[in-house]
């Protein structure tokens, strides 16, 4: 063993020079990729701070002349134009304020409800084995893969029958239903790694289904609940398909509004306002990622390396 280590040290010493060159190449490649990933964010921020004049004169990567947040204000609350009848909203302009709140009103209940049920489902599926529980789990698991095109038409009709089409409530219902597959999967995979012994002991002591959940499992569930909440928040905030299919006009969520805003070109394209709007729409999930990146990544990998 010691001999091996000596040999290893010798090997490393002999190739030290080679190693510094390797290191430089390594950092060079990593650096180039870092630029590739960061450049669009830089372009978005820089463009949003420029005036249209600066955009026409400069190029993508040129710096804005000053920190000018006008585009952000226009993207957020629209532009007031002077007309004979006093201040008036510029017609045909979409701005994000209302849609941002639409998305907030949609995301909070949808995340909470789907997470609570996901935790209970995961607990029931792992700690209280019953007939066919594996098949039920498989059905949830497969539900995380289905292309939503296969359910869009009947869902649209159902929301119509329930009187929920084009409403935030309708979108909450949709996101809860299709989010359940993911939340159940996450929680099931977490609870299965927790020893059955604790639960068995508590059952012998006479503890019931809910008291075991609230007294034993819930207190140690923080990590998976954070992962689940972040995952659901990101998915629902970023959703476009359901929002665009089941809502329009005033009830649309923010991603739909952003898309409409970029598409509805009034007389002149305002790239600075488009970029400011894109940053506003991406801001909440980006902040969550920066603050809780560890849990975000864990959710991604938990959702991918399944079973």
């Amino acid at each position, binding site marked *: 063993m010691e001999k091996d280590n000596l040999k*290893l040290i010798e090997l490393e010493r002999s190739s030290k020079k080679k190693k510094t060159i390797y290191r430089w190449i*390594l950092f060079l*490649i*990593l650096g180039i*990729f870092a630029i*590739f*990933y960061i450049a*669009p*964010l830089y372009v*978005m921020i820089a463009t949003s701070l420029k005036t249209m004049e600066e*955009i*026409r004169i400069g*190029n*993508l990567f040129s710096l804005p002349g000053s920190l000018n947040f006008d585009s952000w204000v226009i993207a957020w609350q629209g532009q007031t134009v002077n007309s004979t009848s006093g201040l008036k909203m510029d017609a045909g302009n979409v701005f994000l304020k209302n849609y941002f709140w639409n998305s907030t009103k949609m995301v909070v209940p949808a995340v909470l409800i789907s997470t609570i*049920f996901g935790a209970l*489902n995961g607990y*029931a599926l792992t700690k209280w084995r019953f007939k066919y529980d594996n098949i039920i789990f*498989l*059905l*949830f698991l*497969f*539900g995380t*893969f289905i*292309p939503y*095109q*296969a*359910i*869009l*038409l*009947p*869902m*649209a009709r159902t929301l119509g029958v329930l009187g929920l089409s084009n409403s935030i409530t309708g979108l909450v219902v949709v996101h809860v*239903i*299709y989010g*359940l597959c993911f939340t159940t999967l996450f929680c099931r995979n977490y609870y299965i790694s927790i020893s059955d012994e604790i639960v068995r002991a508590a059952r012998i002591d006479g503890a019931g*289904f*809910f008291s075991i959940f609230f007294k034993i499992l819930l207190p140690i569930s923080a990590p998976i609940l954070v992962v689940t909440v972040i995952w659901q928040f990101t998915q629902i905030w*970023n*959703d*476009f398909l359901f929002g*665009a*299919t089941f809502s329009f006009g005033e009830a649309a969520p923010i*991603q739909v509004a952003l*898309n409409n805003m*970029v598409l509805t070109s009034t007389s002149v394209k305002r*790239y600075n306002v*488009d*970029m400011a*709007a894109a940053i506003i*729409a*991406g801001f909440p*999930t*980006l902040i969550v*990622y920066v603050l809780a*990146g560890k849990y975000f990544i864990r959710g991604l*990998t938990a959702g*991918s*390396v*399944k*079973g």
Partner: protein
Amino acid sequence: MYWVKKNLPKIVISPSFALLAWFVYGFILWTAYISLTKSKILPKYDLWGVGQYFRLWSMDRWHTSVSNLFIYTVLFLTLCIVIGVVLAILLDQKIRGEGVLRTIYLYPMALSFIVTGTAWKWIMNPTMGIEKFFVDIGFVNFTFDWLVTSGMSIYCVVIAGVWQSSGFIMAIFLAGLRSIDDEIIKAAKIDGAGIFSIYTKIVLPMMRPVFMSAIVILVHLSIKSYDLIIALTAGGPGTSSDMPAIFMTQYAFNRSEVALASSSAMMMFLTVTAIVIPYLYSELRREDGKR
């Protein structure tokens, strides 16, 4: 009361299960049934047969969608995996600043496809975007107009898609690399193996399950891709960057061809199923083996 107590786990799961059975599996069956009818604006329940599928496969627009999906999937899959694996291996060399680099590589995953599409649409703007930058720095004849060129705009979707998802593949490969025992690599070094052959001959073959997961995730993502195309090209110019998801929503909601749209949705569903079921089967068998 005793009955309730005994069956509480089932009672708790039954509302979710009922929703799953009705809104996922029931709805898929409904879509499958409607795809076998002649429904136009409203669903009609008289069975017609597989005529819609013949119609679908005789349509140029569907062929464009499918071939775009094929191009997109091949490039998206290859680029994401190559970039993901290379970045994961490089980041695994115990380098300084790994945390910062990882954060930079992965942040696009937090953005929505609409935000990504909006940003890249501006970057790839045919006159004022990246083209202008290259002209400004001296490449006077540089042009980049893929976004408005039939047959090329699909590659713009690939670029933006890879930008968004490759960091994620890096993350799952890095997690895989970290779970490999260091001793194996040490032993190979002692035997005189170079760093390159250690990775190609020992480490990467050990990561077969990670490759499998990555492939399944990326392929099923690309079959579902919808938002990114809407934001970037809206399927255009014309219908040249259409994909099945766009085709489906177009015919379902704009052209009132409910049955035809359902048949295209079923094609998507069946493709995903054909890829996912064998994968889940092997994954679950692996899990059982571990127990």
